């Protein structure tokens, strides 16, 4: 049962499509792909445009993505001077990350090896620690409520979003900064994923296509400002949409592969809908985990059928990863933002690169051109006050499944 929705008042993103949440949505909708040479790198990102030299020296790339995304989100939320409009002790922060500052760790391990322990950079730990982003954001934005990081691989930031919803429902905060970031396009991490058999051999990201052969690593970050609806209304904030439900489950099956039948992933989808107080027939759009691996895309298709029944065949399903790759701990947040903006924009961006669906993949994955949201959802959907309803799925190494329900 629904215990109330969180108002989403601001979003921000840094992705291989550029800096900015609207940039992400508009460029994806227009079919622009940010993947080059087998990776989704944020090539245009220049932290010097946004940060002082001291801030840059003291932040790993994943933190820089999060800092810039948070500033965009706070600006959009109308947080004056980026400071929250609440008692700072009533503002919390939960962010997802999978690996953290891998580049600094790797560099400093080499320094240790070559020059000995006294040469190791004193800032190695504070810069590389997985919780560096919430720590830096607390300094930048002045909040003093609970803050932490969640590490559950590809579901990290989806779980962070879910945790933010819980905190608001339990009246532990008036606002929660949620999301996540990741930047691990280093030779070492790429090699490790490759040797685990996860990366695309062709370097092409083609979710749900018969030629799909693994995921393409990306990088980036996404931040959402969640607020208690009554407090957001009181201060006259523009509410962009609602986070109405969250559901999670764990495969308990394999360290990296999803269970093919989709039963457990489907349970997370149903739990999220139950939490939002919505029926399967209320769903207008699904932002898929859609990694382009053989196993995920089949398991996710089966999970949608398990959870939504015949309605899974009636709605558009598309993969943001088709244009930005897989940013691991940042993916769930980036995709939740893309989901929100899809509902607000009324146009479903396509799964770029999909031409011929693979065997047993028989849903509408939106190949080719963008399509309008189903007419019903723009003409009185199943969500709150006739709003459209969407799911954003995240399924992770480790079997961690997390699903958020967004209405706008």
């Amino acid at each position, binding site marked *: 049962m629904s215990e109330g929705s969180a108002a989403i008042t601001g979003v921000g993103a840094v992705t291989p499509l550029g800096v900015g949440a609207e940039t992400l949505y508009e460029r994806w909708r227009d079919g622009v792909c940010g993947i080059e040479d087998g990776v989704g790198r944020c090539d245009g990102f220049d932290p010097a445009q946004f940060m*002082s*030299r*001291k*801030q840059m*020296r*003291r932040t790993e790339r994943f933190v820089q993505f999060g800092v810039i995304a948070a500033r965009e989100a706070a600006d959009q939320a109308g947080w004056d001077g980026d400071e929250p409009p609440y008692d700072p002790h009533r503002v919390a922060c939960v962010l997802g990350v999978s690996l953290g500052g891998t580049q600094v760790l790797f560099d400093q391990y080499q320094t240790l090896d070559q020059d000995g322990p*006294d*040469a190791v*950079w*004193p*800032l190695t730990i*504070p810069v590389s620690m997985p919780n560096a982003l919430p720590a830096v954001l607390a300094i930048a934005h002045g909040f003093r409520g609970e803050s932490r990081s969640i590490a559950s691989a590809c579901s990290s930031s989806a779980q962070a979003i879910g945790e933010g919803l819980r905190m608001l429902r339990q009246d532990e905060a008036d606002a929660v900064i949620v999301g996540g970031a990741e930047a691990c396009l280093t030779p070492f991490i790429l090699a490790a994923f490759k040797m685990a058999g996860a990366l695309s051999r062709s370097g092409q990201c083609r979710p749900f296509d018969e030629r799909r052969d693994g995921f393409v690593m990306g990088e980036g970050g996404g931040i959402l400002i969640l607020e208690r609806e009554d407090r957001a209304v009181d201060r006259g904030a523009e509410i962009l949409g609602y986070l109405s439900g969250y559901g999670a489950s764990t495969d308990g099956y394999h360290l990296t592969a999803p269970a093919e039948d989709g039963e457990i992933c489907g349970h997370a989808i149903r739990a999220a809908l139950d939490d939002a107080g919505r029926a399967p027939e209320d769903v207008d759009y699904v932002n898929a985990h859609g990694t382009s691996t053989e196993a995920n895309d089949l398991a996710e298709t089966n999970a949608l059928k398990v959870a939504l029944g015949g309605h899974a065949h009636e709605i558009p399903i598309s993969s943001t990863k088709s244009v930005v790759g897989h940013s691991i701990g940042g993916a769930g947040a980036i995709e939740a933002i893309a989901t929100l903006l899809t509902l607000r924009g009324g146009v479903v961006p396509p799964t770029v690169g999909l031409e011929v669906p693979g065997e047993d993949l028989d849903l509408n994955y939106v190949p080719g051109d963008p399509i309008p949201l189903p007419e019903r959802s723009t003409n009185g959907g199943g969500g709150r006050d006739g709003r459209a309803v969407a799911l954003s799925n995240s399924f992770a190494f480790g079997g961690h499944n997390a699903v958020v329900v967004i209405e706008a």
Partner: protein
Amino acid sequence: MELKTPPSAEKMGARILEALIEFGADPEMMSPEATLEDLEIDSLDMFELAQILHQEYGIEVNPDDFEDVKTLGDAQQVLLGYLK
């Protein structure tokens, strides 16, 4: 361990300023009266500076010596004191 030749006070003073600027302090604000807080120099910067002085000159910096340090001039006085 390799024995290092102590630098002149002038050379070490210049190296300290260079390091603090490299850490992000504003060069135009550098003066003996400037507080470390104004220069946004904190304990992490001092750990980095201590490492540089140790690596380059073999000087062992004791963090306890900085308890009463407020300004850049105070810090330089403590650090140059290690040369005596």
